[in-house]
């Protein structure tokens, strides 16, 4: 049994030491309009909500950018509003609420399961849904399984982008768009989120007995961009769930993770976990024993 070895270049110096943050301007708008206006006037503006990513990572290298616009005082970003067949979750809703809010747990259990593997209780009280949507893995696969759409506001107006496209930065051309909300659908009640080192998967299904009548599957991970497994969904829809069928779903997840590449040993594990977590998410959502 040999461990994989990397051969980093010893001539590459480390430059991003952990150090105190350089100063920045800090503004706290009271409304989305005000925040969008501040974002439009200066391309260096960074929106900050909980700060659990920006402040944490900024200390390596010592900068959060020259100009912070804090969203914490905008109450309209902190609401959860139902719409027909779904919920609009404000981008400022903290991750901890996904676990503690009984209504959310009822309607979107996969989100709470996903939130519970993000850091610890205290960090979840700061970190927000809007901040975590762009972090690969994390909430992403659960949001995808719930048909999540990111609501963006910028100087040029409001648009929505599907979560997996937002993560891939497809179709986002304005500078510094503000994420105001995530819209998720609650049409598929049987849900599960499963995670293991580097890969997490979520499935949301509607079942008629042991037949899957509708399904969405999300997959992602630290080094695995959040994606939707539409091929797997097509294969499952209208089918009776069997071990063989679920194994085929896992195969698709594995192939998607590999993306045509020959992975190194570390990523080989991620691909395998993509397979196993996807199978387990489907099985758990369907109430089948996990394999």
């Amino acid at each position, binding site marked *: 049994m040999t461990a994989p070895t990397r051969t*980093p270049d*010893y001539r590459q*110096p*480390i430059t991003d030491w*952990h*150090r105190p943050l350089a100063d920045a301007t800090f503004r706290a708008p009271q409304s989305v309009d005000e925040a969008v206006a501040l974002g439009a006037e200066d391309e260096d503006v960074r929106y900050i909500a909980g700060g659990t990513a920006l402040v944490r990572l900024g200390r390596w290298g010592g900068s959060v950018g020259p100009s912070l616009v804090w969203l914490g005082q905008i109450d309209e970003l902190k609401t959860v509003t139902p719409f027909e067949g779904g919920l609009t979750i404000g981008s400022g809703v903290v991750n901890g609420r996904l676990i503690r809010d009984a209504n959310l747990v009822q309607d979107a259990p996969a989100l709470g399961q996903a939130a519970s593997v993000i850091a610890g209780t205290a960090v979840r009280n700061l970190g927000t849904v809007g901040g975590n949507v762009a972090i690969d893995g994390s909430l992403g696969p659960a949001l995808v399984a719930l048909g999540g759409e990111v609501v963006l506001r910028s100087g040029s107006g409001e648009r929505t982008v599907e979560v997996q496209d937002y993560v891939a930065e497809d179709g986002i051309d304005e500078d510094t768009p503000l994420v105001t909300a995530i819209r998720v659908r609650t049409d598929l009640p049987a849900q599960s989120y499963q995670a293991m080192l580097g890969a997490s998967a979520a499935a949301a299904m509607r079942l008629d007995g042991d037949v899957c009548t509708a399904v969405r599957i999300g997959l992602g991970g630290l080094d695995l961009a959040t994606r939707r497994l539409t091929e797997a969904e097509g294969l499952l829809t209208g089918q009776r769930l069997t071990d063989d069928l679920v194994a085929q779903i896992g195969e698709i997840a594995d192939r998607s993770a590999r993306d045509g590449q020959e992975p190194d*040993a570390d990523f080989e*594990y991620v691909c395998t976990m993509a397979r196993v977590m996807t199978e387990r998410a489907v099985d758990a959502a369907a109430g089948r024993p996990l*394999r």
Partner: protein
Amino acid sequence: MTTVERQSTAAPTKVVGQRMARQEARGLVSGRARYVGDIFLPGMLAVKAKLAPYPNARIVRIDTSRAEAHPGVVAVITHEDVPNNRHGIFTPDQPVLADDYVRHIGQPVAAVAAADELAAADAVELIEVEYEPLEPVLDALAAMEEGAPEVHEGGNVAPVSADGARVFHIRKGDVEAGFAEADLIVESEFTTQVREHAPMETHASVAEVDATGKVVIHSCSQAPHLHQISLCSILGLPFHRVRVAGGRAGGGFGSKNDLCIDHITALLALKAQRPVKWIWTREEECLLSSKDQAYARLRYRSGVKRDGSIVAREVEAVRDNGAYTIFGVPDAVTKIGVYAPGPYRIPNYHYQGQVVFTNKPPAGAMRGYNVADAHYACEAHTDEIAEALGMDPLEFRWRTFVDEGDEGSTGAPVHGATIRQCMRAAAEAFGWKLTEDGAVKPEVTNPSPQKRRGVGICAGWQGSGSTGGGDTATAEVEVLIDGSVICRTGAVEIGAGEGTTLGMIVAEELGVPLDQVTMVLGDTESTPFDLGTLGNRITYLQGVAVKRAAEAVRHAAVAAAAEVLELPEDDLEVVDGVIRSRSSDQQMSYAQVGGACKFALGRELVGHGRYLSSASPLDPETGLGNPTEQVIFAAMMVEVEVDTRTGKVDVLRSVLVHDVGKAINPLFVEGQMDGGMAFGVANALIEDFYPDYPDIDTGARGFHEYKLARMVDMPDDHTNVIVEIPSRHGAFGAKALGEYTANLQAPAIVNAIHDATGVWIEHLPATPPKLLRALREAGVS
């Protein structure tokens, strides 16, 4: 339920043996306890250091002029500001600030004291250091080969003795003759990983220069007196001009054994003539303090007979020591050899140990110090032998355990051999059947086809105090004029309850309640010399010293009372803290005696105690001798569940047994055993500090990457069993414990994984990716 097995018939005690809260408990839970980082002095400056960005590079040029001109900067130092730039507890080879070369990532090159942290950090970036990057030495085994690049001139394998030998041997009996007798020869090879101590308090240091020019360092050192020796050498100052004021650390685990921060703050305070404070970031903690040792090779070869007796054992160890010696030779290379063969009767033993330099942060000492590595390799090897013999792992061990008076690994007889009592207690608590005919491991049921369960076992031994002699402890106990008691020792409270434990011994000896005793700890100016809180030595060695100091002051009190009362000394006895006449109703309290001493008799009521371990250094030729005075024994059993599709291991239940001789405070004993569990489980399954070094991004930059055991990683069903078979040496029969509690988990878990899946883990830790690869290679996944 905590079980206590007692063989003690000692006199009843009133304080010792009680479950008592820590003297500082209320301060700890109310945020009032002070750590070094909590000290704020007027005019205090903040410190940051320029760190080596390469694992190996020649320094071409250092220019600090821009940093010196930066607003807020008061002092900048480089190696040119250090009177004696080389230090080391055994070999002075480590620079305070790098001069000719940098030899590991993060090595300090220069340091700045400035008005605040931000100014200091900005100034550090203005220090220009021109480097010539060199090919680093990363693999200890490759580093041993001819023609390998050198970390230091003169070869990568460290000399282990004055005559330049580079292999340390222990030769007991005749291994070749032993192997010739064997029915079966079993060979195994293992490696261990680098770990980080990760005390929750990163290193912090506050240094100031007092009105007389004396340097005062507020330190979180585990060993203030040892550090004072190095500091005086570095600063070129006599001992009375350097005070290390410590006594409390927010955890240490060995990281605070060796000097790595106080020298830099002291130099800056002297140069700035202002107080300075440096609190390390977690990243600095990761890179600037010494690391745990990794073993690049632990090769075992054993000859056994069909009846389960071991007739010969060879052990070869190669320690990846990082860039500087610190404890590597002679201490580490000796210690692992002593305990590597395990608590077994082995007539013929040959050990070869080597220490190799690499361009990594230097290996110091970490809880478990080499013995953890030895336990893992020895006990996994032991299970391999049992399997080869077709024998139950417990039965094989039982047949060959060392007994009272048997020859130990270095030839000296083993006294206080209690491994059988420990293992029997473990078997009873765990349900591993042990009868005259053999042993039967408990049945386990796999919950599903992909989840497999198994059980594992570990037996172990370790020494008390440092290995090979010279381990001394001193203490002073004074009774004040109101009868209250002050005990001064150089020990440091790092969280195990060292102060309260020693205070309980004093209270017991004087017959006073614990709250009448105050402990003064770890200050080179006000406490007598001590090696520090390290190496399993406080309760065992320092316990004797404080007990003797308390005895001495009790005798002095009796003598003083005899003078005052005009009674013969032998008419007086101490009962419940009162000195009473046996023949009359005359009596004196400690307060009365204390007052009489001060005002009537003109003397101090002070007692001194010291203890020097009878252990002695090993013979440099044969490696034989008596390296520890008190061997301690322990046993463990665990049940694990392996998810064969993910490689994840859950520890379901565990039993940990330690013979502590006498639990001075059973609550603290449990605390140490509990804490050892977190260390041990993480050693087995989680912690791997920089597997991709010199890429440090996957580990050595903080807790986001380097994971410790969390609450959910611990088995709910854990049982501590405390065995108390008294030591002939320790206070009230106490033996050592704290460091040792972290050593048995990894081997027990690895053996349980094997029981569950048939796969051997030959390199720690058994992370899910690594285990899954092994399971696949074995066709189990």
